[in-house]
């Protein structure tokens, strides 16, 4: 294929889309649906990961001190906690502060729970630098005299890891299956286009067109269908992102602060959907046209 043919071939690809506009439109519509589902699965996966990261970041532990420990002795434990390497932050959490949280719930009883009536002991709120060193850090903390217990988050960490694995696995299969479906759809469209243009192809072959020359307009056509579907699907996803996020936040409060904002996502969505659409288009087109051109003999119709 010569360079001088490039312009002609690109023009032919565009013409193909227009000449087979009904078929192209049908393919674009089906592709849009598949890309939206694929994109939605990816976005859910991304947001769950972000959620997991947010929960992971919220690695605040409570170090409960012995109930009988005086306020003075309790304050002395702070510097000992800060000496532990894996402790990033350490904040004193007095028993007065703890009971204050329950003021509304307790109502009239609240007053009677002040001073000696306070059922809580003093505590420290700490943050770990590395959550994976949780067990060894807790062990070090428990060795400090006056420490009663440490809140246990190992179970939550395990659950989050399992959820992350599940979301990634489901997302992978959804993307894979829909990818194959879209590939099949686009290759079928190109097959139909080729069938409708087999007469033209046979003339091309009879005058000495190379397979590459015959292939290019169909690949461009498939690429354009993919691009168009990718752009539309990304537009729809961007438009629906915030309303869906708001609706989901109404159900689970945590989502509201932990999801990725649309401002950060619109460009990656647009670029990735368009590129995925084009790649699927090119692959689908190539599958059909290569299969068609591999046929031995019978290239020149009716001979």
């Amino acid at each position, binding site marked *: *294929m*010569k*360079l*001088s*043919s490039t312009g*002609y071939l690109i023009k032919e690809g565009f013409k193909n889309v227009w000449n087979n506009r009904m078929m192209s439109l049908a393919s674009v519509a089906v592709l849009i649906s598949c890309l939206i589902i694929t994109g939605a699965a990816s976005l859910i996966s991304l947001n769950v990961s972000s959620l997991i990261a947010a929960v992971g970041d919220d690695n605040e532990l409570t170090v409960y001190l012995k109930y009988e420990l005086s306020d003075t002795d309790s304050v002395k434990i702070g510097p000992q906690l800060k000496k532990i390497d894996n402790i990033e932050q350490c904040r004193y959490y007095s028993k007065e502060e703890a009971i204050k949280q329950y003021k509304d719930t307790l109502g009239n009883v609240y007053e009677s729970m002040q001073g000696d009536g306070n059922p809580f002991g003093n505590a420290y709120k700490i943050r770990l630098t590395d959550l994976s060193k949780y067990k060894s850090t807790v062990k070090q903390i428990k060795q400090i005299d006056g420490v009663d217990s440490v809140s246990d988050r190992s179970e939550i960490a395990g659950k989050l890891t399992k959820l992350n694995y599940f979301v990634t696995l489901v997302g992978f299969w959804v993307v894979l299956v829909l990818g194959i479906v879209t590939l099949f759809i686009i290759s079928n469209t190109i097959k139909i286009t080729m069938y409708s243009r087999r*007469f*033209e192809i*046979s*003339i*091309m*072959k*009879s*005058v*000495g*067109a*190379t*397979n590459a*020359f015959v292939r290019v307009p169909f690949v461009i056509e498939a690429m354009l269908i993919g691009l168009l579907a990718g752009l539309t699907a990304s537009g729809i996803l961007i438009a629906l992102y915030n309303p869906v996020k708001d609706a989901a936040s109404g159900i689970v409060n945590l989502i509201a602060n932990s999801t990725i904002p649309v401002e950060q996502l619109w460009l990656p969505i647009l670029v990735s959907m368009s590129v995925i659409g084009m790649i699927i288009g090119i692959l689908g087109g190539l599958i059909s046209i290569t299969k068609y051109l591999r046929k*031995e*003999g*019978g*290239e*020149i119709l*009716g*001979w």
Partner: protein
Amino acid sequence: MIHLENVSKVYPNGTEALKNISLSIQKGEFVFIVGSSGAGKSTFLKLLIHEETATFGKIQVNGHDLMKIKRRKVPYLRRTMGIVFQDFRLIDKMNVYDNVAFAMRVIGTPEKQIKKRVREVLRLVGLHGKEKRRPNELSGGEQQRVSLARALVNRPETIIADEPTGNIDPERSHEIMKMLADINNSGTTVIIVTHEHDLVEEFGGRIIRIDDGEIAEDKYISTKYHELPVSINTSNLVLDLGDDTTQQAPSADTLGKERNQ
């Protein structure tokens, strides 16, 4: 130059379309391939353009060994030929100019050269001024002239015409044959498959009759359009009974020896 040696073609269903045929067609020859339906004429043409592959034998066409040719080289073989079909094979949605230009575009010719050459060829086939017409606005004879222009536009070494007058009236048929004869006189090899005995008699040249997959007859008819080729050693020719202008054509071997002399 076209050279076939002991060529046979057996289709997968067992039909033996060509049986051990050998012949040579020299550059610049004007050849009619005649024979009844199913005799093997179409298979012969299909072998020449590598639409089909021979089961046995050797085939050389315009410098390509068709028994060894790679798939990616087939387009380059076909660029040495121009094919004229019985049913014209024009693209309805393209006008006359584009139908002819198409053959140049597919081989990557720059648009400037295409413009010049297409106009030249359309003038040659008498279609100057009809560039913008669509095939369905033309008569059968004119459509075949477009087809001829498309076959000619890339300056092929060989023109292969499969029943070029099969779908047009006798007067237009004569015009098409006259054009093919003129093309041949300019040095292009022309191979025509036809059923029309009258045209064969009138235009003459080399006549190869295929019957049941074999070459039943290979002779020359000298006419005002085609005289006996001067390169043929007349001592090898056998006169056909009752017609002093009809002579037996030399075998592939004979021609081969003459070329080497």
